[in-house]
Every structure is written in structure tokens, then in C-alpha cells.
């Protein structure tokens, strides 16, 4: 009983609780309205199905929101990630396709292509970081510069064309499979682990949170807040670079105008849905992953349920508003009666579950 109580307390304190509830609610909705949503098929040794699809298609957003999380945790914001996605894709497509005339060959060795695309995206992040930490621009303005200029740079690289990538090994990044799962899942997992290690196994996470809460006090405590800020924007650019590779590989082309369009806003939304405050401070990488999954599964659900295209955006907005309100403590307090009823329902459901699972006299009393 104590263990359960503690679990409930922890769930009440954990920032992950509400994003998880939101995600489960979307899943629950699918369970009732479209059970086939959960079916997973094996084709040619690969797993296929809506759930796998969400993981695969959500990969770019998850990557961007990881980078965005750290930026937001320092009290900043990065509006440039969408255009950086386009720049990275354009760089890769140009290096591969330049002078190959539609053949399945590459002009530049693939490792170099990937390295170059990641480098240029990381340089974009570094530029943002320099503007914020050294020039002292407000993050929203500093990154707005690259947001505006970024698509132009991508256009310059593609010379205004949509560059198609015919080189098939490149397609593996966004479309390939590894151990029956989409390759992108492993990319996201690797970046997540890298970020988790960077922030929780070094002191970087503490520094980021400290700066986000009070950067003057952090400075007085000897934290090089300028370098930390520089680093988080650079990392965000790096994430956008990987996302750019995935996006361009998935659609086998680089579209300077539309690749990663409005991704920055989705990434910010994912971070907020994941429970990281825009004021900075405490952050949760896992929360942002959940946030990105909420957005992606919502999109997939809306399309597959057959919501008329003209109201898709409205439905999406309403669901997101509900999720955000649910996260607000003040809202929950104001609407305690309704939520209380909802909770007691779930509690009853849970205790029912428990009695069936634990018939050995464990009572269901709360």
C-alpha cells in the first residue's frame, strides 16, 4: 500500500505524468475508434503499422525538440531549426547529385556528405549561439535572423531547384530498417542517449538549469554562462542537421522552400507539452520526446480517422489546447470537480485491475 502511495505521489510530482496521460488518451481514442491502429505487420522482415509509422515520421521532430529543450532550459528559444533542416538537406543533395545526371551514384563519398551537412548545420547553431552569448542579442531576435536567412541559403545551395537524390544508399537514412525497426528510431535513440549523458552524467544539465533559473547567480557561482549558451545553440543546430538528413532522405530530395517548414514551432510546442517551462530552468528530455510523440500521433490519428482536411488544423489546435490546460496547475485546481470525477473513474478502473491481478487478499481500498 505504501509503495503504491509513494508511486502515486511520485506520479503527482513528476513532470512526465501529464504528457503521458495525454499520449495515452490519444492512444485510448484510437483503441476505441480504430483498433487496427495498433496492428503491426511483418513485411519482408520489417515491422509496419501506425505505431511504427509515428516513431518513424516523428523522428525529425523528436530530434529538433531534444535540441530545443536545452535551449529553452537556458531561458532562450531557437526559431531557426526549420530552415537549418532545409540547409542540411540541400547541402547533402547538392554534394551527392551535383554532376551525376540522375544516376544512382554519388559525387561525394557518403560519409563526407553526412559530415558536411552536419557541419554546416552545426555552424548555423554556433552562429546563433555567438549572437546570443557574445553579441548579447535576445534569443528570439538572434535566431530569427537565421530563420529568415536560412531558406535563402538553402535556395542558394539548390540554385532554386528541388534537387532529387537518386543515390539509393542515401535513402537508407530516412527509409531503411535495422533489426526490423526503422533506422530513424536508432538515430533518435542515439541522440537521446548522447544528450542524456551530456546533461545527466556531466554537470552540463545542472549548469543549464541554473542559468535558466537565475543567470546572474550562476555567473557569480563561476558558471561560464556564455559558453553554456553557445553550446546549447550549437547542439540545437546539430540536431537540426540530423533531422535535415532524415527529411531529405525520406522524400529523396531537397526542397529549400518546404523542408522543415514550421518545424521550429512544432519543436517548441513539443518541449512545452513535455513539461519544460518557456521561462527556463528544469527541463526533461524524455518529456520533450513524449511531446513530439503527442504531436505526431495526433497528426496521424487525425488523418487516419478521416477528419475533413479543412478542419484538421482546428481539431489539432483544440486537442493541444486541452493538453496544455491539463498541465496547468491553476486550471486543474479551478476545474478540480470535473477532473476529480475523471480521476476517481480511472482510480476505480485501476483498483478493479488490481483486484483481478492480485487476488491474494490485497484489498482495493485507497
Amino acid at each position, binding site marked *: 500500500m505504501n509503495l503504491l502511495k509513494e508511486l502515486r505521489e511520485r506520479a503527482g510530482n513528476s513532470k512526465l505524468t501529464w504528457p503521458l496521460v495525454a499520449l495515452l488518451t490519444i492512444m485510448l481514442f484510437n483503441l476505441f475508434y480504430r483498433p487496427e491502429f495498433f496492428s503491426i505487420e511483418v513485411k519482408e522482415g520489417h515491422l509496419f503499422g501506425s505505431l511504427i509509422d509515428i516513431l518513424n515520421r516523428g523522428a525529425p521532430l523528436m530530434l529538433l525538440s531534444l535540441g530545443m529543450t536545452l535551449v529553452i532550459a537556458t531561458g532562450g528559444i531557437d526559431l531557426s531549426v526549420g530552415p537549418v533542416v532545409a540547409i542540411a538537406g540541400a547541402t547533402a543533395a547538392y554534394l551527392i547529385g551535383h554532376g551525376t545526371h540522375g544516376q544512382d551514384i554519388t559525387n561525394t563519398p557518403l560519409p563526407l556528405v553526412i559530415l558536411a551537412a552536419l557541419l554546416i548545420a552545426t555552424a548555423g547553431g554556433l552562429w546563433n549561439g555567438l549572437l546570443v552569448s557574445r553579441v548579447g542579442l535576445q534569443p528570439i531576435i538572434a535566431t530569427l535572423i537565421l530563420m529568415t536567412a536560412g531558406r535563402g541559403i538553402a535556395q542558394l545551395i539548390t540554385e532554386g531547384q528541388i534537387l532529387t537524390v537518386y543515390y539509393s544508399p542515401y535513402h537508407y537514412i530516412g527509409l531503411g530498417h535495422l533489426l526490423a525497426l526503422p533506422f530513424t528510431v536508432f538515430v533518435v535513440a542515439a541522440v537521446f542517449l548522447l544528450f542524456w549523458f551530456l546533461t545527466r552524467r556531466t*554537470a552540463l544539465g545542472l549548469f543549464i538549469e541554473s542559468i535558466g533559473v537565475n543567470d546572474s*547567480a550562476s555567473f*557569480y557561482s563561476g*558558471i561560464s554562462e556564455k559558453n553554456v549558451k553557445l553550446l546549447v545553440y550549437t547542439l540545437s543546430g546539430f540536431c537540426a542537421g540530423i533531422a535535415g538528413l532524415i527529411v531529405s532522405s525520406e522524400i529523396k530530395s531537397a526542397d529549400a522552400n518546404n523542408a522543415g517548414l514550421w518545424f521550429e514551432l512544432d519543436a517548441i510546442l513539443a518541449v512545452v507539452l513535455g513539461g519544460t517551462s518557456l521561462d527556463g530552468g528544469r527541463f526533461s528530455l524524455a518529456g520533450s520526446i513524449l511531446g513530439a510523440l503527442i504531436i505526431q500521433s495526433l497528426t496521424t490519428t487525425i488523418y487516419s480517422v478521416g477528419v475533413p482536411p479543412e478542419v484538421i488544423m482546428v481539431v489539432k489546435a483544440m486537442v493541444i489546447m486541452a493538453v496544455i490546460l491539463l498541465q496547468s496547475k491553476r486550471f486543474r485546481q479551478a476545474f478540480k470537480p470535473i477532473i476529480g470525477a475523471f480521476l476517481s473513474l480511472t482510480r476505480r478502473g485501476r483498483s478493479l485491475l488490481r483486484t483481478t491481478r492480485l487476488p491474494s487478499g490485497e484489498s482495493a481500498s485507497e
Partner: protein
Amino acid sequence: MAESAPLLRMKKITKTFPGVTALSDVDFDLRRGEVHALMGENGAGKSTLIKVLTGVERQDMGRIELEGKPVLAKNPHHAQELGISTVYQEINLCPNLSVAENIFIGREPSRFGAIKWRMVNARAEQALDRLDVRVDVTQSLGSYSVAIQQMVAIARALDISARVLVLDEPTSSLAANEVEKLFQVMRKLKEEGLGIVFITHFLDQTYEISDRITVLRHGELVGCYETALLPRLELVSKIVGKELDNLDDVSQLRNSSAKHVSTETLVQARGLGRKGSVKPFDLDLNAGEVLGFAGLLGSGRTEATRLLFGIDSPDSGTLMIDGEEVRRFSPLQFIRRGVGLCPEDRNADGLVDDLTVRENIVLALQSSRGWLRHIPRRQQYEIADKYIEALDIATPSADQTVKNLSGGNKQKVILARWLATDPRILILDEPTRGIDIGTKTEIQKLVISLAEEGKAIVFISSELDEVIRCSHRVKVLREREVVTELVGDEVEEGRIMRAIAGGWEQ
């Protein structure tokens, strides 16, 4: 105070915050046509008294009468309607709006929802005219000097109905000639019968403009005096809380610890200074020594510590720490050389209030080690628990969010942060400000025992008593300049206060 009923009377005002009594039984009264200076050091209760008057805070006990009638301001806006207007220290106007907009923002004369701009501008000109200020009111406020902005703030505060004007440190950001201009305006308003409450810590200005002075200390009324009848030195002694003839209780603690002072010089500054911050000064600090900084608020004592910890870079002089010259001025450089600083404003520059006690304690140690050499979680708890116990920090656990602690315990957390780095030099800027008496004594004892361990300490306090009790030597600052240094038996109230007052009355 006899003749007629005063314009404003505050009687037996008491206000407590969790853990501190900010005001206890404070009386204050203001006559028509009077400039009444309100003086006192940090934590004296000046700002709380003003907040109670203007409805920002509600007093626990006591009553306020305006022209003989009891009033209770619900909020600053309501206070203004009652005739009590305030101009705060930081000008809270909008520099990008026009002068006229700033004066009338939120109460623009309008018809059918459309603002009557001509009327706004004309009235703004009138309002400024009353202060003898003539500027183009359609220009943006930011294009004028700080002094003009101050006048605009006053013009905004002075409704036709204003009877009481509160000026909260209006001169701290003004140049000398601008101060003179402000005083002219104050004299004019005085003649019109307004009562002005003038909060300042500049003695010269107090004597130039005020008719009476009320001194607060530790939330208690020290007294109300006619300015003309109160010698400067006596005023200083009222503010710092020591009577001149009460000079005997020199600290036993300090004398007993004096023998620990070694000849090893840890800090040596020569001509260290920064324009607009503190004039060049020399400083030597030995291991095992406590060096006090005495001076009123704004005297440059905090600015000096900013140079000694690399918050600001000096533009003149040299600084040697442990025999090595410091070239790069940043806190990290100083922490790595074994310096720690408890800043004056512990909420703004010290605490990271959304983080836990543990995280706050290990912060400086972690940053001095660099981000790659992460202190393992278990070790973090060990460090935190060690200092929670050693300093007796009242917290349910090391995982408590720091903002939930009381003022004294917050200060201990910051002390713990620096002790965890095992510094050789510790700068404490007002470590006992706003802290209960018990904790105060604990911190004073800690300072002495740290010195005995061989650490060098710079100790700053608004309370002269405390500086004298703890320090082996005292540097006295006045108007951003180190005016004298007192050693050993010279460290006594009379000399310090004379130095602070400026030595006119010897």
C-alpha cells in the same frame, strides 16, 4: 508636532513577514510643506513603511491618518486616489512612449474610446510646467536625460489631488547638477503645501533639503529629529545604532583571534579602481585576518567587492592573489584561485531558487571543477548533508527547493556553497542582512572561526557593531572612495563614524 493635525500620521505600524519583523510599532508623521527624510540602513524598514503607506503591503497593526481621517490604501492606485503618490527608485516608465503618454498612460482623457491627443499633450505640458520643466512632450521619453525622466515620473505621480509625495532614493542615479534641479522642484512643491517623504542615504542631501529626519533601525523607530538641531555625527550614530559614549565593549572574540593572523599576504591590491564604481584603493589581506568594510549604503563597499571577485574588471591598478597577478577578471578565475563571494543581494545574485538545496550547495564547487568532472550524485548528497549539519540549515532534506527556506537558511545555503569550495579568501557582503538575531550570531562566530582556520575574510555589514566585533582591520568608505583604514585598537565606533560622516565636526 503640536499645532495642528499633521498632514499624514502613521501610528504604531507593525508588519511581520515569515521569520522577520519588518516594522514594529513605528510612528511617522508628515506636515504640510515639509520635506521629511527617512533614513536607515538595509533592512531598517524604510521600504516596508512606504509599502504599507502606498498599499503594496497591509500592516498587521497600527493606523494611518491622512488629514486626521483614517485611511487604508488597498493598492498603489488607490493610494494615489487618496492623494499619496510615489516615485520609485527605478523609474518605471516606458522609454519608448512619448513624455505625454507616460504621464497619462492608463488614464488618458478620451471621448468614445478615442484618446484626445491634443488634450493629453496640453495637460502633460501643464503638469511639467508645474515642475518648471519645459520639453517637447511628444518626443519619446528615452530621448531625455535620466533627470528629465525623473521629473516626468514625478509629474505622473503628482495628480492635482496629490497631498503626499514619496520619493524613494530619487537621487541615486542623478549627477550633481541634476540633483540640484530636483531639489528646486522639491522646494517649489513644498511651498505649494505638499508633504514630501524623501528616502535617501546621502547625508549631504539630507541636510540640504530636509526639515526633519526620521531614522529607522531593524524595523524600529530610532527617533524623529529636526534636521537643523541634529549634528551629522549623531545622525550617523543613530543610523548605525551606536551611541558615541558607549565605546567600551570591544570584542573579546576578535582579540583572541588576532594572534592567528599570519604574515602571509593572500590579497594585494594597488590602485585598484573602476570609473563610476569605486575610486582606486590599496588593500592587503593576510591569512587568518578579517578585514571589515564600513560605510553607508552606496558608499562603494559592494563595488569594491565586485572588483575583488571579478564581477567587474578594474580600469586601473593591479590585483595579486597569492602572489600571482590576476589578469582575467571573471568569477570562475577567482573561484579557482580560492576566492568566494556571498553577494549583497542574495536573491538576485546568490540563490538559484528553483533548484534544490543540494544543487545550490554544490554549484560553485562543480563549476570550479568544470562541467566534465561531474560530482557523482552520492558525493553531492554527502557534501550537502555535511553542510546542512555543520551550519544547522533548517530544511526537511537536501532535495528541498531552496525558495521554500527562510532568509537565514537561504544565506546559510550560500555560505555552504562557498565553504564547499574550501576557499582561502572569503568575501561576505552583508551576510547577516535580514536575518534573525540567532542566525546572525552564528554567522559572526563562523566568520571568526574561519579566520582562525587561516582563511582571509572580507566582512561587510551595514551594522557597525558587527563590523567592529568581527574585524581586525576596517576600511572606511565614503562616496565611492576608501577614506581611511583603521587597525587594531583604532577600530572603534567613534573613529569609524567620524570617517563616514566626513570629518566636518571634529
